């Protein structure tokens, strides 16, 4: 069970190879020991995400689609990490992450859930009625994701910090949809509603 190494291993000075942590469960440092995310680090829940979405997002970070224009320091952190990873490392990291059971920390969020539910009908077209995600549309599961993270991403799409890159067609879809929402309150209500949805089952994930 070797998990992924530093990307810089390839470029690093060879004399120092000993100092690297060859077996580090690197992703878990920020994303929590079960890949469940960590609010204190502002790291999202990865355990709910399927392999295809994780792959796509690492690619997005590598290609400057995510993080590049952001004023959000957290996405910059992830961008730097993603850029240090080779395709083989990405594959190994994702194989590792997807071994974790889906889990979620209970959150409470103030928001008008019924209004959020009404607004969510639009989201459901791609993300599914239970926010379980849809691979053929590239729409990730949302159920089980942290509210603060969803909110931050919706804001990033609205402000154009995410979904702005020319080749990022999936991001552009989200950007346009997020821009059609009227207010911060709308975002909050949608997220409050998503927060009430049950976790996707593990077989959906795999």
């Amino acid at each position, binding site marked *: 069970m070797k998990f992924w190494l530093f990307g810089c291993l390839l470029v690093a000075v060879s004399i120092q190879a000993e100092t690297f942590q060859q077996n580090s469960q690197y992703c878990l440092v920020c994303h929590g020991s079960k890949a469940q995310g960590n609010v204190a680090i502002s790291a999202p829940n990865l355990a709910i995400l399927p392999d295809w979405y994780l792959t796509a997002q690492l690619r997005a970070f590598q290609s400057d689609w995510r993080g590049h224009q952001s004023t959000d320091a957290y996405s910059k952190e992830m961008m730097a990490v993603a850029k240090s990873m080779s395709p083989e490392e990405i594959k190994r990291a994702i194989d590792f992450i997807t071994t974790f059971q889906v889990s979620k920390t209970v959150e409470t969020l103030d928001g008008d859930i019924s209004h959020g539910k*009404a607004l969510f*009908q*639009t989201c459901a077209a791609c993300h599914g009625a239970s926010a379980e995600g849809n691979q053929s549309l590239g729409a990730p599961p949302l159920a089980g994701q942290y509210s603060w993270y969803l909110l931050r991403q919706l804001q990033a799409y609205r402000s154009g910090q995410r979904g702005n890159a020319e080749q990022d067609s999936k991001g552009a879809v989200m950007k346009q*949809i997020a821009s059609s929402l009227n207010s911060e309150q709308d975002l909050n209500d949608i997220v409050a509603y998503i927060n009430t949805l049950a976790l996707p089952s593990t077989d959906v994930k795999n």
Partner: protein
Amino acid sequence: MNKSTLTLGALVPLAFLAGYYLTSSGPAAPVYTAEISYGGGAAVGGNAKKSVLNSMPTGTVHAVKDGQLIMDAVKAAKPGDVIQVWPGNYTETVYIDKDNIRLSGVIVEGKRPRLFGDGHLNDAILYSGNNIVIENFLITKYKGNGIMGQAGNNFEIRNNIIEDTGVYGIFPQLGENGIVEHNVVSGIEDAAIYIGMSDHIHVANNEVFDSVAGIEIENSRHAIVENNFVHNNTGGILAFVTPGLPIKDTVDVIIRNNWISTNNTKNFGAEGSMVAGIPAGTGVLIMAADKVIIEDNLILGNKTAGIIITDHQNAPNTTLDPESDPTPDEIMILNNLMYNNGYDTITEAKVLLTTELKQGNPDILRVGASNGSCINNPQQYISAGVSDWPACAFSNTDTIVNYLLDEPAAPRSVDVEDKGKYAYLGICTGCHAYTGRLIGPPVQVIQSLYMDDPQALAAYIANPVKKREDYPAMPKQDYLDEETRQAVALYMLSVKN
């Protein structure tokens, strides 16, 4: 009360009255007689409307026999022609994009021409022409629509039997001046008869059953629904405003003299769709529609409630549309016979009754706001939410025979620039609201997906691929020519609500 008696008389499908008499000598073209049907109506007097068409067909009669394709005759036909379809099995989609065509089944000793979708075809009959008559068919096993009008004006759809056919049985979309009568429609996943974004419509003497919604008047104006037998659906008769459609209101609807009974069928609508939110056991459902008169109906044995009146906020699976007024205003409940409704109602109804210190099974439930509404003789019903409604200023609608036009409506523009618009309104919006889920995903989402690539959207329309597990597959729209597909794709990407 003599109207109720009349209603009872009209409940038996009178199909045979409307058919042709045929000699047994074979497929000789029958002699055409004028006024082959009548347009029903509350007053079966001399003023009943017979037809929305001004003239009888004058052109050629094309006969289609078993083993031939109806579509071949349609292609050959010119405006004014009659296409006579003889009994037999026809597995095809008929698409009429011409005006003044009469598509007429020939019934021989009770045998009708049978349009059979074989479980894989989407639509039986589509028309986008004006002045279209469709009659005397048996339609079964299609996935999408039995008969769908796409922005055609002056239509008559009568005397058809539609069974187990997809999402909509009879669905005139964006039509003006039309009659839907003497049809028997059953086993439909959404609405058996669905009047969408239309004006001046008459829906009479139909039997609809075993469907999710019996008769649905949606985002339409000036419609009368009368003398229908509506039973064993999830919801009987619905007057709706669906948010997110280009036509924003439903106004002036009369629902009278219908027999609306035991609409207690478990809801089998597609999950997440708006009709999937209808509680089983709903006799009449008014959502956000204005000026709806409910008069002289027999409403019996609907387990949730006889009549439910709601605004958008309280309805499940609805999105909000800032341009739609979410409130049902000026709802007028005149005399109705309501009996044995609400015996197995929803918790919300019980709560509502309790707040009014009432007990029993609700005939009428009103939730959310409603302005300017009235009710006559409310004491005869068990109701919640209408106790502060005043009496109506009138007791019947006898003076309104129908809302049909005196002269046929002018055809819609066929300019290229309007092509996309009417295809959009007439076809796409049948399943796609701007926001929220109707049948397919919202237009807003589609816009985001295709944004500046109408070619890709046009290509998808012609050859859709199923992408969403919980949505029905989109039917191919390849009967539309390339120019129209391109135009509608462009239009769809440009609409703002």
